[in-house]
């Protein structure tokens, strides 16, 4: 059944907007299938698990693979076309292989203006690839991403979907050089960058034990709170407001 369904879909995936049906390679094994079924069982209606399942598929196959699509369709009782329709709707699902590290440079208005455009240009030159491309050694994939909800840390770069805040062209390239040399690089608000595939597995719903890594918040997240503490401002009579007297942060506005 699954083979026939594959045949009726267009094969030139660049034109079709579909996944790449010409690349049948897969690393999906019995364990993956069990994990896919596990995800399907976590919801009252299994179909709700399609997004976590596709995250898992690409953590194993580095992209949404034909084998992964067929596995999801079979487990959820969906048609191939329905699964592909979902896989190609959401931008995080990859239609071709990603790099070991996925570099997303925010190019929505505010980050672009604050320097995201310059960062993108520098990264393109440094890696020799453009938007939605992968370096020949498979180390990096590059993507111009849309707003990632960290505007107070602009310009923002997301690597493996971890925050790299307040970046500059120079800082970004230094990070890429460290990653290329195999050195651990820490997210500014998160763990040592785990790699794109590892994070796809975490997104799918398999814990990686890294929740306690990184800070609670970066400086911009705390800026208002610090001013309030320094000035003794608080919500009216809130018992939750337990007065503390931390030192006034250096450089905090008066």
């Amino acid at each position: 059944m699954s083979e026939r369904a594959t045949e009726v879909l267009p094969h030139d995936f660049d034109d079709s907007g579909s996944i790449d049906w010409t690349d049948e390679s897969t690393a999906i094994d019995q364990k993956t299938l069990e994990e896919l079924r596990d995800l399907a069982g976590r919801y009252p209606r299994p179909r709700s698990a399609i997004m976590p399942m596709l995250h898992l598929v690409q953590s194993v196959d580095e992209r949404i693979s034909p084998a992964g699509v067929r596995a999801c369709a079979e487990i959820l009782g969906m048609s191939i076309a329905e699964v592909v329709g979902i896989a190609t709707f959401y931008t995080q699902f990859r239609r071709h292989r990603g790099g070991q590290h996925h570099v997303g440079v925010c190019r929505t208005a505010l980050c672009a203006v604050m320097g995201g455009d310059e960062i993108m240009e520098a990264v393109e030159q440094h890696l020799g690839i453009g938007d939605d491309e992968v370096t020949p050694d498979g180390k990096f994939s590059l993507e111009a991403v849309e707003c990632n909800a960290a505007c107070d840390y602009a310009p923002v770069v997301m690597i493996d979907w971890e925050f790299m805040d307040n970046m500059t062209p120079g800082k970004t390239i230094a990070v890429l050089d460290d990653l290329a040399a195999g050195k651990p690089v820490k997210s500014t608000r998160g763990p040592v960058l785990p790699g794109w595939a590892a994070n796809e597995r975490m997104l799918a719903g398999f814990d990686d034990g890294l929740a306690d890594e990184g800070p609670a918040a970066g400086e911009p997240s705390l800026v208002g709170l610090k001013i309030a503490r320094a000035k003794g401002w608080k919500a009216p009579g809130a018992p939750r407001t337990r007065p503390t007297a931390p030192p006034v942060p250096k450089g905090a506005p008066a």
Partner: protein
Amino acid sequence: MTDTLTPILTQTWDKPMSWKLSTYRANGGYDGLRKAFGMAPADVMKTVIDSGLRGRGGAGFPTGTKWSFIPQDNPNPKYLVVNCDESEPGTCKDMPMLMASPQLVVEGSIIACYAVGAHEAYIYVRGEVAHVIRRVRAAVREAYAAGLLGKNILGSGFDCDIIVHAGAGAYICGEETALLSSLEGFRGQPRLRPPFPAVAGLYASPTVVNNAESICSVPAILVNGAEWYASMGTEKSKGAMLYSLSGHVAHPGQYEAPLGTTMRTLLDLAGGIRAGHQLKFFTPGGSSTPIFTAEDLDVPLDYESVGAAGSILGTKALQVFDETTSVVRTTLRWTQFYQHESCGKCTPCREGSWWLVQVLGRLEAGQGQPGDVDKLLSITGQMSGLSFCVLADGTVACVSSAVKHFRDEFEAGYHTPAWELFPYEKSTLWASDSASSPKRGAA
């Protein structure tokens, strides 16, 4: 007189390991839930209604009233869905909140479920924020281990389960009916309303969809009472909220203040526009809300006042741009965002955003054709109010308000590229200190 800043949600963010259940409890966490369990569900709902809490996701609909729409005689299970798909350009409040204090959303969800009679909650977090998802999932695990989720919570006899669902990159899933489609395993496309989610939401069952900040505001309301919350803010816009300042300000970040705080006050707190520059324009509530200029600095940032001034409070995402910024460039980038994020269901949105990008692109390049500015307005006229959801209306607001305030700049695009009028390097983060020192970070 309420203090200028009122840390409630942000109160524990500077505590060591603030995301842990132990830290949360040491600072009064789950007192709200205990109090709720001592009340009838209807009284919990009434408390939230009386508090005046309104949806913090943009629309500003009263949260407790939304809860009251859940039909209690419907035989289907009832659901709570917490919208943490924060993606509106400029909006950056929920992600830091969930990273620093994820137990807030767990406690708030249990209280909301108790109030409406739901036993299952879904926390839908956008997929592009790995560490936020880790923290929320860890918070849910800790809550289960402590008996705060699952069966017979705190001996109350009330059962509640939470599933944390990671999205996969789609702004449109922040629209509540698109979010429900996505959660059901379909493409994230909006549905026609009615039926509203309260009647036929997730799995065609009664569903409350609330923004993360709304839900996180609930525990403190239970602890301190409706009157306490309503004592902050303005007559019709009560309480406090996170104002998020970003862009060309000295100290961008989160400022938790009563509703009705003005941009002038917030800018003062943020150290003003970056040194040596002046305010050009700002968004009051994200890119989908008509832009404001220096003339609007004294507009109280509450639902009514911002509306009266011709914009929308939205998500209180105050993106600030100084005089180095090209409005044509920012408008193009925002429109490209909407084009990229249009789900494609409705023709005016799908095609209109594409055409706007074509026209804005040539205006940015100084290759606009006479009449292009009117063409922009003509296209927006064909998009406004003609789609299932408000994505197209957001696009329209962004473009038409920019043209209204800065028409000359758009017309300059008939002959001069935006980057010649506004050299782009002057707008960057590192340009602010480049006057006297070499460019920091230049590769």
